[in-house]
C-alpha cells in the first residue's frame, strides 16, 4: 500500500514537474508566467485525438501531438508575446490570460464544449505484477516518460551551447547578448522547450484521463504554477522539486484524509504552500539572478 502510494505520488509529481518546468523555463528567460501553457496541453490533446481519428499509428500520433504543442508554443511567442517584449510582468501576465481565454473559446466553438473521448491503446490499461505487488502500466509510463524528459532536458541544458546560454540568460540576458548570442534564438528555444514539455505532459494527462475538453488545461497549469512558485519561481531545479512535492502532498492527502474533510483538500494543499513560502519566501530552491544596481 505505502509503496503503491509512493509510486502514485511520483507518477503525479512527474507530470506536475514537467509542467512546472515548462512555466519556469519561459519565466526564467522572459519574465512571463504563461497561463496559456495549459492551452498548449489542450491543443496537444486535440492533436492526438485528430491524429488517432485520421488513423495514424499510436506512436506517430503522439509524435504529431507533441510537435504540435511545441510549434504552437513558438507561434504563441511570435504572435502574442514578441510584440510585448520588454513590457512589465503584469502586462505580460494579462496577455497570457487573454491568449488562454481566446484559445478556450476557439476550442469550445470550433470543436465542442463537451469532452471528446480519446481511446488509449489497450496495453495502457493493465498492470505488471511482482509477487503480490502490482504496478499499473499507466503510472509506470508516467514515471518513465517524466524521468526521461527530465534527463534529456538536463543534458540539453548542461551540454549544448544553446542550453548553456539559456541557463546564463536566466541570470543575465543582456550579457548573453553581449556574447553575440541572438536573443530571439534563446527565447524561441525557451518556448519550444516549454511547448515540448506541455505536449509530453498532455500525453501523460490524456493517457490518464481518456478525454480532452476545452478546459482541460486549467487545472494542470494552476498546479504547475503552484509547484513553480513553491520551488522558487524561475528556478528549474525548484520547479522539479515543487512538482514532486505537490504530487506527494496531493496523493498523501487523498489517501489519508477522512471523507468528511476531503472537500478541503485543495485548501489544505494551498495552506501548505503558503506555509512553505512564509518560511522560504524565494521558494525551495531560489532562482539565481544577477544583482544589479
Amino acid at each position, binding site marked *: 500500500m505505502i509503496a503503491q502510494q509512493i509510486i502514485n505520488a511520483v507518477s503525479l509529481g512527474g507530470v506536475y514537474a514537467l509542467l512546472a518546468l515548462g512555466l519556469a523555463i519561459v519565466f526564467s528567460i522572459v519574465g512571463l508566467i504563461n497561463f496559456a501553457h495549459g492551452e498548449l496541453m489542450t491543443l496537444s490533446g486535440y492533436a492526438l485525438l485528430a491524429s488517432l481519428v485520421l488513423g495514424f499509428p499510436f506512436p506517430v500520433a503522439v509524435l504529431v501531438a507533441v510537435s504540435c504543442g511545441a510549434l504552437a508554443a513558438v507561434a504563441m511567442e511570435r504572435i502574442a508575446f514578441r510584440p510585448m517584449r520588454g513590457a512589465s510582468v503584469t502586462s505580460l501576465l494579462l496577455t497570457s490570460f487573454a491568449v488562454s481565454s481566446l484559445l478556450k473559446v476557439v476550442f469550445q466553438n470550433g470543436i465542442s464544449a463537451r469532452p471528446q473521448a480519446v481511446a488509449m491503446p489497450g496495453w495502457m490499461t493493465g498492470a505488471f505484477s511482482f509477487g503480490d505487488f502490482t504496478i499499473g502500466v499507466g503510472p509506470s509510463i508516467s514515471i518513465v516518460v517524466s524521468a526521461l524528459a527530465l534527463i534529456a532536458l538536463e543534458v540539453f541544458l548542461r551540454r549544448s*551551447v544553446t542550453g*548553456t*546560454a539559456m*541557463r*546564463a540568460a536566466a*541570470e*543575465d540576458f*543582456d*550579457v*548573453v*547578448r*553581449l*556574447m*553575440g*548570442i*541572438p*536573443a530571439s534564438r534563446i527565447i524561441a528555444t525557451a518556448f519550444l522547450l516549454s511547448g515540448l514539455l506541455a505536449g509530453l505532459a498532455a500525453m501523460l494527462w490524456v493517457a490518464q484521463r481518456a478525454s480532452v475538453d476545452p478546459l482541460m488545461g486549467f487545472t494542470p497549469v494552476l498546479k504547475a504554477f503552484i509547484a513553480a512558485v513553491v520551488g522558487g519561481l524561475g528556478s528549474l531545479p525548484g520547479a522539479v522539486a515543487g512538482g514532486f512535492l505537490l504530487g506527494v502532498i496531493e496523493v498523501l492527502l487523498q489517501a489519508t484524509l477522512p471523507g468528511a474533510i476531503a472537500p478541503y483538500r485543495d485548501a489544505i494543499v494551498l495552506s501548505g504552500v503558503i506555509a512553505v513560502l512564509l518560511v522560504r519566501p524565494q521558494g525551495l530552491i531560489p532562482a*539565481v539572478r*544577477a544583482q*544589479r*544596481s
Partner: protein
Amino acid sequence: MLSVEALKIRYGEVEAVRRVDLTVDSGEIIALVGANGAGKSSTLGAVAGLVPVASGKVIFDGVDITGLTPEAIARKGVALVPEGRRIFASLTVADNLRLGGAVHQPVAEARLREEEMLELFPILRRYYRVKGGNLSGGEQQMLAIARALMGKPRMILLDEPSLGLAPQLIDTVFDLIAELRRKGLTILLVEQNVALALEIADRAVVLANGEVVLSGTAKELASSDLVRQAYLGA
C-alpha cells in the same frame, strides 16, 4: 576604428549623456574618465548596443552600428566587459568561457582560443570546473575579460576593471591591459582610477555631466590643472 558622434542618451526624462564625441584609432587605448554619474557606462552601453541611443551616431570600421542589437554588434567584433563584471554566477568557469566563444567561430577554433585564455589566466585553469559565483572579485574580473576575449574581438570596451580590487590585483589587471594592446587589441577603457588610466592610455577623454569637457593625449591631460585638481588629488 570607432567613432562616436554627438551621442545623446536619455533614460525617460533624464538626459544621462548630452553630447559625447570621441574617436578610437586602431591599436590605441583611450581612457574615458569622469566623476560618478558622468555618463561613462552609458556611453559604453550605447556603443555595445545595450543602451538605446537618443540621437547621434556610433560608427565602427566605417559602418554605422547605431541601433543594432547587442548580438549584432558583438558579431562585428566589439566586446564589452560590463561594469561589475556580470559573470554568470551559476555557470562554471568553463561554461562562462564557452559562451564567450559560442557563436563567432567554429568549435575547434574556440577550443584553441580557450587554451590561449587559460595560458593567459592560469587562475582560470585552476578553477575551471568551479562556479563563477564562487570566484573572488579579482578572479571574476579575469574571467569577465577572458570571456569577452573568447569571441576574438577587435575592440574591447572595459568598464572599470579595477573596481573593488586590491592594489596588487589592480596592477595585474593593468599589466594585462598593456599586454592586450601589445597583441593589437583596440581598447576603450573607463576608469575611476585616473592616474593609472592616464599612465596606460594613449589619449583620454574627460566626461562631466554627460558632456566631454576635456580631451587630448594622456600626457597632456595628466599635466592639465583641471585633471590634476579634480581627479589626481594634486
